[in-house]
């Protein structure tokens, strides 16, 4: 694509902070402000501030909003309580994953004013919007493209509750993980969600683009004495990788079902209605239970060379899998990877597994995901 990248509402601010920018899914986004390793460590130990305005917000409303989402997505959206969020997926008829999503239930759970916000990955937002719109045929529900209605700012890390608390009137103590509520941040309206993609406690704040700079500056000021730093997409990737969280386009693709990705738990066959992909996914679930072809595992390097997406995983000279994501792990101090490997080599501790790094078979330890879990 040669189109001009889209700019977030915080673009000028990023540039004034000296950010290195990168094109990501058609958006010009901050990759890092200084050292990505320092940003990563700040989020693990203190807090980081992210601009995630590239994420795609889609609002679904109407008397049959729940019915539409239950038909269009693999999760059971009817069981999402008011003010709660759910990690789910949207699949093709053949069970292939179109995107992974977070669905927030915003409106009261009555049939008259059900209101949901579906947050899609930037690179898939149009695909998800088109699929929801198409699947909405016959339902009394409205699918609205709200990508331009929101900027998204995340504050993540152990200091984030204290930082946010100082600039909001919302009851953060009552806000559980995977919950969201409307409130005020820095004097402007925001949807405050306790979600994230870092493996740390943290918040995602959906605000009007015109308010984004005010919110960013207020959080920066509130966090300046507790180690808050601006953080770019580079550290977001290593943070989610350590936390074992899948990334669309890497661990998740249209060629894989949720069962192939080890995420079959998001598919809720028990919901009564039909949903797109049900028949194919039932077959995929049986296949995964009886004879899993490949499994998603973690790999930790014994050496220092870094595995990258697409590198072959090898054992006894044979290719037994493929790396989907890899990076040097700041927390472990070693290169790590997520890979699909043949079931025979997927048990943690399997000996003799390596990654082909530009022709050399580097030894790797097979481990269960995640690499990192925060102390609660």
């Amino acid at each position: 694509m040669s189109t001009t990248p889209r700019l977030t509402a915080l673009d000028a601010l990023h540039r004034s902070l000296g950010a290195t920018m990168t094109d990501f899914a058609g958006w010009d986004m901050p990759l890092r402000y200084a050292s990505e390793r320092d940003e990563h460590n700040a989020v693990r130990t203190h807090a980081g501030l992210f601009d995630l305005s590239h994420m795609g917000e889609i609002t679904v409303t109407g008397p049959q909003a729940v019915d539409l989402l239950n038909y269009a997505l693999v999760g059971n959206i009817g069981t999402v309580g008011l003010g709660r969020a759910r990690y789910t997926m949207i699949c093709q008829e053949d069970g292939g994953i179109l995107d992974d999503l977070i669905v927030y239930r915003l409106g009261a759970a009555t049939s008259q004013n059900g209101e949901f916000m579906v947050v899609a990955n930037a690179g898939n937002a149009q695909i998800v919007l088109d699929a929801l719109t198409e699947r909405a045929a016959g339902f009394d529900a409205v699918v609205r493209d709200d990508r331009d209605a929101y900027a998204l700012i995340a504050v993540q890390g152990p200091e984030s509750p204290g930082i946010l608390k100082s600039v909001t009137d919302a009851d953060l103590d009552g806000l559980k993980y995977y919950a969201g509520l409307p409130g005020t941040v820095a004097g402007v309206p925001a949807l405050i969600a306790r979600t994230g993609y870092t493996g740390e406690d943290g918040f995602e704040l959906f605000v009007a683009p015109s308010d984004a700079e005010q919110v960013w500056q207020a959080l920066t000021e509130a966090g300046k004495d507790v180690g808050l730093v601006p953080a770019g997409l580079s550290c977001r990737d290593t943070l989610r990788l350590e936390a074992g969280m899948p990334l669309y386009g890497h661990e998740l693709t249209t060629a894989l079902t949720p069962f192939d990705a080890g995420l079959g738990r998001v598919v809720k066959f028990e919901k009564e209605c039909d949903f797109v992909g049900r028949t194919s996914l039932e077959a995929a679930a049986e296949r995964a239970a009886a004879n899993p072809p490949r499994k998603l595992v973690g790999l930790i390097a014994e050496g220092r060379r870094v595995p990258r997406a697409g590198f072959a995983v090898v054992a006894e000279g044979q290719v037994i899998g493929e790396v989907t994501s890899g990076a040097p792990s700041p927390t472990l101090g070693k290169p790590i990877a997520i890979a699909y490997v043949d079931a025979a080599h997927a048990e943690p501790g399997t000996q003799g597994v390596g990654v082909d790094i530009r022709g050399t078979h580097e030894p790797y330890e097979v481990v269960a995901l995640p690499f990192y879990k925060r102390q609660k």
Partner: protein
Amino acid sequence: MSNPQQLRYSKEHEWLSVAEDGVSTVGITEFAANALGDVVYAQLPEVGDTVTAGETCGELESTKSVSDLYAPVTGEITEFNQDVVDDPSLVNTAPFEGGWLFKVRVTGEPDDLLSADEYDALSAGN
């Protein structure tokens, strides 16, 4: 960003010091180090290796990518920087000083090495 005047530069963003007793020191520029991001692994040529101007002689790995290291001149490696092997972040923190990569006894130079001013123009245009 200031590129030291006394050094010469390759288009692949290596710098080369003035030879002392025929031996020059080689590193990558601050511009290149910034473009790479945090360097986490350096594979450098071994002492005694012969390197050829414009050809790869090692690699630098950062959080996001791996980049080939090119020899700016032809010659024999006399020393490599063990400090960088042990702590690759020196390439980011002191690219023109403690983050040097290797020393080479120069036997041949390409004719397209750049002056500091010429390299300033090249890196500014990127």
